[in-house]
């Protein structure tokens, strides 16, 4: 209605006057509004990215800025792909990403499915459950070091109390077998609410009438769950998995504070390797090449995944 009025007025007003009324042209305004953001991103994200690409072909070391920089061609990339430590770091990352996502999806979906029952007080308890994911992974992760302390740590105490293992033997962070699980536990504790919240939105998006129709057809509850609830919530579950997958692939802060990659290199995920190479060994060129490879990997995986996601959505 109003639209039509606007059109009529636009037609009734002579061209130059119309321009005067609007001040700057729409096109000009659009660019005026968008360009500062684009410029900032070019300066802080894209320019450094190209710099990193350039460095990845050199032997540059940031702690020796005056040394002559040699062009190495693809040597850094070749060395990374043949580097045993890098492959171990990638396996550690894959292990971490796989288990955190599996646990968070299963627990998160189950919680969402239970909350969807709308028992009394569900809104309050949902908010309580959401709290851990808003907190700083670094600051809270640091405190988990205390909870994991053998004997005096609350977590270790509870574990030894429940299992009967002597309290000094529950060494979550210094035991080679347990350390990878100690970071998986903290990550799952923190981010299960994230998956839960997205799954809850998925469950609430399923229209009631589909269940009513299923009920009329006398479909069992089990059947309803597998052929209505799960498939219809699937795009949401996949979205949660996508976000968590990217985030955990990049995981740095929590692991750095909890284990620092140790003991040895048992929890050395890709970002920790990158930090050790770039800021401890100062192999800037080499680590830039690794950074580029990681970036391409995340970008590629995310793209493939988004395509799959769109396919699921269309069904």
């Amino acid at each position, binding site marked *: 209605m109003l*639209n039509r009025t606007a059109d009529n007025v636009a037609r009734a007003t002579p061209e130059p006057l119309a321009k005067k009324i*609007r001040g*700057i042209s729409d*096109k000009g*305004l659009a660019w005026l*509004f*968008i360009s*500062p*953001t*684009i410029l*900032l*991103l070019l*300066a*802080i*994200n894209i320019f450094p990215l190209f710099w*990193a690409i350039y460095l990845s072909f050199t032997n540059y070391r*940031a702690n020796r800025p005056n040394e002559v920089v040699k062009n190495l061609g693809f040597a850094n990339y070749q060395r990374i792909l043949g580097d045993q430590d890098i492959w171990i770091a990638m396996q550690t990352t894959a292990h971490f990403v796989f288990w955190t996502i599996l646990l968070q999806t299963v627990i998160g979906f189950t*919680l969402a499915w*239970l909350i969807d*029952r709308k*028992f*009394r*007080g569900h809104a309050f*308890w949902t*908010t*309580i*459950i959401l*709290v*851990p994911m808003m907190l700083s*992974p*670094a*600051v*809270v992760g640091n*405190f988990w*070091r*205390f909870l994991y302390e053998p*004997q005096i740590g*609350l977590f270790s*105490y509870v574990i030894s109390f429940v299992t009967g293992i002597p*309290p000094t033997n529950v060494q979550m962070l210094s035991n080679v077998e347990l350390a990878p699980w100690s970071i998986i536990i903290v990550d799952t504790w923190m981010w299960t*609410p994230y998956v839960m*919240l*997205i799954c809850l939105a998925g469950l609430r998006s399923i229209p009631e009438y589909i*269940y009513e129709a299923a009920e009329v057809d006398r479909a069992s509850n089990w059947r309803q*769950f597998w052929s*209505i*609830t799960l498939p219809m919530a699937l795009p*949401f579950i996949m979205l949660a998995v996508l976000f968590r997958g*990217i985030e955990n*692939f*990049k995981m*740095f*802060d929590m692991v750095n504070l909890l284990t620092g990659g140790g003991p040895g290199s048992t929890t050395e995920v890709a970002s920790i390797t*990158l*930090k050790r190479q*770039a800021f401890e060994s100062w192999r800037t060129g080499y680590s830039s090449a690794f950074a*580029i490879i990681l*970036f391409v990997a*995340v*970008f590629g995986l995310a793209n493939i995944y988004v395509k799959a996601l769109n396919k699921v959505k269309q069904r």
Partner: protein
Amino acid sequence: MSLTTAHSVVAPSANSKRIAGVIIVAYALISIVPLLWIFATSFKTPPDSIAYPPKIVFQPSIEGYCNLFTTRTRQTPEYINSLGPATGFCDETVRKRNMVIAGPSNFLPRFVNSLIIAFGSTFCAVFLGTLSAYGFSRFKVPLADDLLFFILSTRFMPPIAVAIPIYLMYRELGLSDTALGMILLYTAVNVSLAVWLLKGFIDEIPREYEEAAMIDGYTRLQAFWRTVLPQATTGIAATAIFCLIFAWNEYAFAALLTSGTAQTAPPFIPTIIGEGGQDWPAVAAGTTIFLVPILVFTILLRKQLLRGITFGAVRK
């Protein structure tokens, strides 16, 4: 059995609700134990904090908070006795451990840095984000989808990978370890979230409002200022809080790019040590003070949380 009653024509049975409620409440209680433990530890004395078995009942003390805000030196009892009367609770507590307060700790300046950097970058990101979001929402921008994807894709980069060239660039520009450098960096990270979230909020404001205003003689800019902005305040506020939380919580860039004057609280808190290792009550005290603002914001934001964490992809 009753648990499998997904949806049905009738609402979930009372029994299934009860079981669901019990499980959810149990999960919620267990999952906040670590947070309650942080809070409790901050009021323990150092010996209480490392007692075995862990103490649930204890005599509360603010020694942790005293230690958080001060640095102390060990002195002989004779020296301490020769001093005048203690000038406050902290002074008294510290003296009991044969120490005297040497001066303020770095916690307060680090906390102030966190405030300056978080608020500064949030303001910039929301300002730029609002303008761009309006641009993308209302005008035909060539390659709009590609630009929006470009803006989002800057989030895919691992922070350490970005930090390497930023570190070099800031060294050249003299921005290393400055609040300005951190504000610029956090603005760049947050602006992608701001654009995506705000575009969603502005898309929901009917264009008719601006068009009506323009018919009344407002220019496009005036219409944006007088009609769109007031309508978008909720969205802008929610976006600002999300940016604030990100900048407040951020650790990787802060740890790698700041070391002294511009260091924020997250890289500082883990370095709080007392005699013989980490001073856990002081760490817990710092963590508590650091987390309280986030708790308040989470409660304020709970209706918008879903939108914020999915970059506006999922709305209710």
